């Protein structure tokens, strides 16, 4: 038994990592729906979900159960093979792209094996991600076509046209970053931003590449079919767009795919332009290493304080409990300096990812949807020229500096 474990350690570790990451991503997806509904609700002076569990915190579980148990009718006249393939393809590709992301700088040592945070570390990381995004349009387009219905077909058509148009500016806007790092590997791109640790936040790519960042984020939002670029599922004109004819878990698969690609894009924004797992403070400020604990303790205490005044008894038990756990984790981090050192990278990366997820939701709560011609002229006449100009300027500056 132990021989078997020793021989296949790499494969077993990878399998465990895959399962763990899958579990984390799916849970985060579920709570992302809660987060989005809450934030948009508060932006529109509503409460959002608050019936199931304290502050509606158990709503994702109820939704999940509903998706699993609902009837799943197949409309007549659909193209069976493609109809079933489409949600599978969307979900599989979205989850694959998460596997390429690195989540922390240092390996963690368990049972004599160095385990890196992240499943694979490709030296063509960013290209592999683009390859996966390039294929992910088929999920939406085929769902629209195979449903044998007018509105989904229009949604699928819009989606494929939008993807082809915005993929150009998405790819071109990253070229500046690649030129500065001289590598396709996501790890190398982050390390290139850490070349001057004393500069902290000023060493990040977002300052020299501000044009690239704006183009990248806009195109990425369009590429994930999120508001204000959610024309493929524009509910005011197309019922629900490409997934009109999907119900139950197949619908949930499209949903999970959409939220997973939101996480991927947020992680990519942080890695390419905002220093990934790098702290915004100069390396000499060691007291900044206590920031994660400070934030955890403060938010834990606040959840406890909020929880003891909650209106239901269940909430008065659950919320202080959750708050106590968060506070204890914060205190433990202070007491164990080596663990605290280790979580610095993941803490900053996850913090940045959460920020971009908030921006996604913020944009959805604030911006009206583009009209179709506006969408096209915005992509082709503004984003593409600007990202091309960014490439030329970056290449020119690098050439002048001579490295």
């Amino acid at each position: 038994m132990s021989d078997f474990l020793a021989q296949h350690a790499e494969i077993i570790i990878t399998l465990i990592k895959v399962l763990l990451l899958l579990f984390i991503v799916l849970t985060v997806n579920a709570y992302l729906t809660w987060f989005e509904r809450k934030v948009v609700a508060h932006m529109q002076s509503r409460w959002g979900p608050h019936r199931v569990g304290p502050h509606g915190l158990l709503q994702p579980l109820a939704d999940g159960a509903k998706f699993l148990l609902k009837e799943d009718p197949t409309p007549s006249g659909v193209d069976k093979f493609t109809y079933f393939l489409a949600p599978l393809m969307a979900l599989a590709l979205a989850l694959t792209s998460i596997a390429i992301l690195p989540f922390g700088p240092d390996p963690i040592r368990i049972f004599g094996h160095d385990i890196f945070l992240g499943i694979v570390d490709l030296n063509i990381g960013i290209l592999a991600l683009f390859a996966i995004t390039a294929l992910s349009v088929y999920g939406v387009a085929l769902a629209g076509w195979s449903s044998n219905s007018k509105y989904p077909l229009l949604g699928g058509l819009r989606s494929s046209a939008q993807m082809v148009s915005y993929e150009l500016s998405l790819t071109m806007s990253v070229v500046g970053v690649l030129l500065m790092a001289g590598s396709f590997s996501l790890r190398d791109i982050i390390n290139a931003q850490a070349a001057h640790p004393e500069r902290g936040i000023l060493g990040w790519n977002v300052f020299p590449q501000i044009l690239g960042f704006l183009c990248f984020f806009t195109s990425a939002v369009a590429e994930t079919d999120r508001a204000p670029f959610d024309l493929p599922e524009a509910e005011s004109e197309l019922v629900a767009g490409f997934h009109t004819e999907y119900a139950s878990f197949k619908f949930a698969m499209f949903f999970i795919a959409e939220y997973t690609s939101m996480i991927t894009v947020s992680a990519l924004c942080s890695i390419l332009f905002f220093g990934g797992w790098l702290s915004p403070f100069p390396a000499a400020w060691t007291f900044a290493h206590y920031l994660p604990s400070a934030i955890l303790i403060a938010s834990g205490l606040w959840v406890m304080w909020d929880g003891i005044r909650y209106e239901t008894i269940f909430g008065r038990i659950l919320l202080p409990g959750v708050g106590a756990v968060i506070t204890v984790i914060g205190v433990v981090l202070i007491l164990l300096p080596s663990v605290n050192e280790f979580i610095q990278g993941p803490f900053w990366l996850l913090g940045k990812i959460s920020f971009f997820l908030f921006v996604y939701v913020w944009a959805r709560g604030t911006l009206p949807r583009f009209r179709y011609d506006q969408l096209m002229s915005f992509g082709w006449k503004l984003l593409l020229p600007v990202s091309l100009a960014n490439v030329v300027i970056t290449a020119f500056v690098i050439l002048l500096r001579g490295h």
Partner: protein
Amino acid sequence: MNAPLLVFFFLAAIAILGAISLILQRHPIHSALSLIVVMVALAGLYLLMGAEFVAAVQIIVYGGAIMVLFIFVIMLLNAGVEERTNMSKMAGWAGLPLAIALMGFLAAAVARSTDRVQAVAQSGATAPTKVVAGLLFQEFVYPFELTSFLILVAIIGAIVLAQREKQ
């Protein structure tokens, strides 16, 4: 049989099956899907040779952009199931011998140039992207620029044709 060879035959089988399905499928969308399978299998073969950059570009350009455009057009025209006409008799008679002859020629050409193919594969394995970039922008820069000029001409031609139709 070692692992890379096994993977090679697996990917090759997928590519060939995809190509056969591309011809046999009656619906244009299914044919297009089969073509995507072929493209992705080819990318896998490039990856096997250590040409990571070419593999990724193969998927991005062929599997992504070009095939999305194919599917877009098929969906836009709402092309239905194709109707089988009576097959051409000459193709029936001459097709198989010609196909075998073509395969023989290709196999002979590949067999003769194995040394060179291996050399390219090995040089590509060390620093694929840099090698590709060096070849494209130094050694073959004039053919490369000429090709892009040709594509530009085609794009302008397409725009001119589209505009004329509007008036």
